């Protein structure tokens, strides 16, 4: 039974790799290899950033016999990154999976079911932890003289930390589920809790960055502080550096916590997953609820309702909206610093507006609302297919949702940035045009990617929202476009002024957007009609 459940969970989890949802076939050979390679490249890029951190701190800490501090700091980052990656997954895969009731009706003890589900969350957390720890470990092994304990203890500690990531993700997911099962507007509750968590994460991330800078200057002082005041972090560092007692302490602590979490989940799983609502039955009032509108508005409202009813969708695909508003407010509070930076970084007229434009585009590309929108139609796709609306109208509603939720905060952030840096009118106009074109391009690209690899047969909505190649591609494509434009500029900046380069970039983005719009209207609509 356990084997069958485990196999089902793994098939579900890795279906994005092995299944070609468009052709409904199993991916094999070259296609599978290319797909895996793509993920390795994507994750490798993120790993590279952590690798840079490792290079910066490993050698100096080793020279002062503070190897443990290296693992304390990187372990802390890995835990935060791992929880960040898996916490959104834990609630939906544990409590919102469509097959929960079916499996609960089978002769499977809830404890076994939760164990299998936890394995899924564990692997997701482990994956994110590895993105941090693989380069960190590699750099460590190249820096210190190798011995049995120097090789084995860091690996063992990483594994213990992966269990701790599971505990934190699951505990947060459990709290969200508990609150959601008793409240109305579950999606908003989940989003608010998650945003609080995210805020905390970014606050700690900021603090971690200043801590790293401090201990690069005074590593011994920081080491003494961690040792005296932050024992768990110290113990993680010491365990990784080969201290058996520290390792045993953290291992016992983590596994005791795991037992407690497992016990609580086993006892509450059935109740939480089968409690439908905590609210009273709503009264139907004819006069208040019958409203009229046209077909295009109805389709747009449908997309908006789909978006706002799902915390997963909002958090994973619409986070950029919140971040851009936060960024706009942050800019307003740092006007002096931005102006000073503008004076330093503006050797050529228009250089700073160009950099600001690239930064705004990068933040706006965190919204990938269109990327899972076709897949999210799921089994109810027959509705729009059987109604008197064209596929183009349906696709336009999806694009419009992305544009409304992304364009407004993008322009708000742009307006604040332009207000602070006050560039010449031509640059103001170009920045506004470029960010607008970029948002349009991102919306279209997400939709194109989803139409090329749609998945209408999912058991948990987290699969199309988070665990699909299309979403991954869409999310990184914005960054790749900006980075490519940056690299090209680095080669041509001696010959091309920022003004000309921005005009050329706008022309390129316009051409790309027009091409994608043409594709969507012609090929995309045909694909949608055949789904």
């Amino acid at each position, binding site marked *: 039974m356990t084997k069958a459940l485990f196999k089902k969970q793994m098939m579900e989890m890795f279906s994005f790799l092995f299944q070609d949802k468009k052709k409904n076939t199993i991916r094999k050979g070259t296609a599978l290899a290319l797909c895996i390679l793509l993920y390795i490249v994507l994750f490798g890029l993120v790993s590279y950033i952590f690798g840079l951190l490792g290079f910066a701190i490993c050698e100096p800490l080793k020279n002062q016999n503070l190897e443990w501090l290296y693992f304390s700091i990187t372990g802390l980052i890995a835990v935060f990154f791992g929880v960040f990656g898996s916490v959104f997954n834990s609630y939906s895969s544990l409590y919102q999976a469509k097959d929960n009731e079916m499996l609960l009706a089978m002769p499977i003890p809830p404890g076994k079911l939760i164990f299998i589900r936890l394995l899924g969350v564990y692997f997701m957390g482990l994956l994110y932890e590895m993105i941090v720890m693989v380069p960190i470990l590699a750099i460590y092994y190249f820096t210190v003289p190798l011995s049995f304990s120097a090789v084995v203890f860091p690996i063992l500690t990483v594994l213990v930390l992966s269990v701790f990531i599971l505990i934190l993700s699951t505990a947060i997911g459990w709290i969200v589920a508990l609150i959601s099962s008793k409240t109305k507007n579950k999606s908003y509750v989940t989003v608010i809790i998650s945003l609080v968590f995210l805020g905390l994460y970014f606050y700690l991330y900021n603090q971690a960055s200043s801590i790293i800078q401090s201990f690069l200057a005074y590593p011994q002082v920081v080491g003494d502080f961690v040792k005296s005041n932050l024992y768990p972090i110290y113990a993680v560092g010491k365990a990784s550096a080969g201290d058996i007692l520290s390792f045993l302490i953290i291992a016992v602590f983590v596994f005791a916590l795991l037992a407690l979490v497992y016990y609580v989940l086993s006892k509450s799983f059935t109740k939480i997953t089968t409690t*439908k*609502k905590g609210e009273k*039955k*709503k*009264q*139907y*009032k*004819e006069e208040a*609820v*019958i*409203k*009229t*509108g*046209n*077909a295009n*508005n*109805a*389709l747009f*409202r*449908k997309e908006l*309702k*789909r978006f706002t*009813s*799902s915390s997963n969708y909002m958090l994973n695909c619409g986070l950029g909206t919140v971040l851009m508003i936060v960024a706009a407010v942050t800019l307003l509070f740092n006007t002096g610093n931005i102006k000073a930076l503008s004076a330093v970084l503006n050797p050529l007229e228009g250089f700073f507006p160009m950099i600001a434009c690239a930064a705004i585009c990068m933040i706006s590309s965190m919204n990938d609302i269109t990327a899972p929108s076709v897949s999210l139609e*799921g*089994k*109810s796709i*027959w*509705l729009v*297919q*059987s*109604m*008197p*609306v*064209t596929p183009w109208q349906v696709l336009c509603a999806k694009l419009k949702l992305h544009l409304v939720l992304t364009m407004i905060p993008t322009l708000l952030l742009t307006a604040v940035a332009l207000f602070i840096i006050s560039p010449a009118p031509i640059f103001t106009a170009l920045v506004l045009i470029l960010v607008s074109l970029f948002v349009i391009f991102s919306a279209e690209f997400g939709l194109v990617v989803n139409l090329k690899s749609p998945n209408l047969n999912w058991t948990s909505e987290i699969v199309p929202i988070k665990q699909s190649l299309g979403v991954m591609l869409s999310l990184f494509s914005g960054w790749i476009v900006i980075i490519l434009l940056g690299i090209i500029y680095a080669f041509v900046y001696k010959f091309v002024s920022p003004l000309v380069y921005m005009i050329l970039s706008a022309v390129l983005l316009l051409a790309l957007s027009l091409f994608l719009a043409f594709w969507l209207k012609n090929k995309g609509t045909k694909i949608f*009609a*055949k789904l």
Partner: protein
Amino acid sequence: MLRIEHLTKKYGDKKAVDDLSLHIRPGEIYGFIGHNGAGKTTTIKSCCGILQYDSGEIYIDGVSVKDSPIECKSKLSYIPDNPDLYEYMSGIQFLNFVADIFKVGAEERKARIRKYGDAFGLTSDLAQQINAYSHGMKQKLAVISALIHEPKLIIMDEPFVGLDPKAAHNLKEIMRDFCNRGGAIFFSTHVLEVAEKLCDKVAIIQGGKLIKSGTMDEVKGDTSLEDVFLELVDNSEDSND
């Protein structure tokens, strides 16, 4: 109202529907019978413009589904065998959505929602989220949404599955009333007793091919529809062997 001419639909090399021709006139309730995998749902989805077929032609009220799918869809309603609706909407939000798509005015939609909501005992639940509905409630909501824009043709795939006896009775009355007012209904069912009592005409399909069609009397003669169906299907299987 619905004319199917030499419809053929293949999945790979397999013919799911093979040279099928049917004609459903205004005022008729037309039953479509066949065992699982016979090609009923494929035929129905082709008529609704959801599936694209390989050859043949389908006309709704004289308009080709292939050439003018939107015009055809505005004349018909479709209810699938398993109504997967928008679970993130409430019942009334869903009905408003459908009414908006079909351009139903405020007063008409209000009257129809009241009429059909009461008929199916769903009015008091319309403010609830669809994800809290039972299968039968979803089926009722799908039927109400099909009736809200007063189509000329209703195409249904197993419409009685999941309905309680009272709702099933009401649906039969609504179907008859709809056809008496000039509409046409084409529906598939496995419940042969219902088909026998309700349908004016019936078609039996086996392996994608039409094996018998006509008025109820022409098809069943003096025996029951069940006997005729079983005999025809057995004969068809024997001849295929």
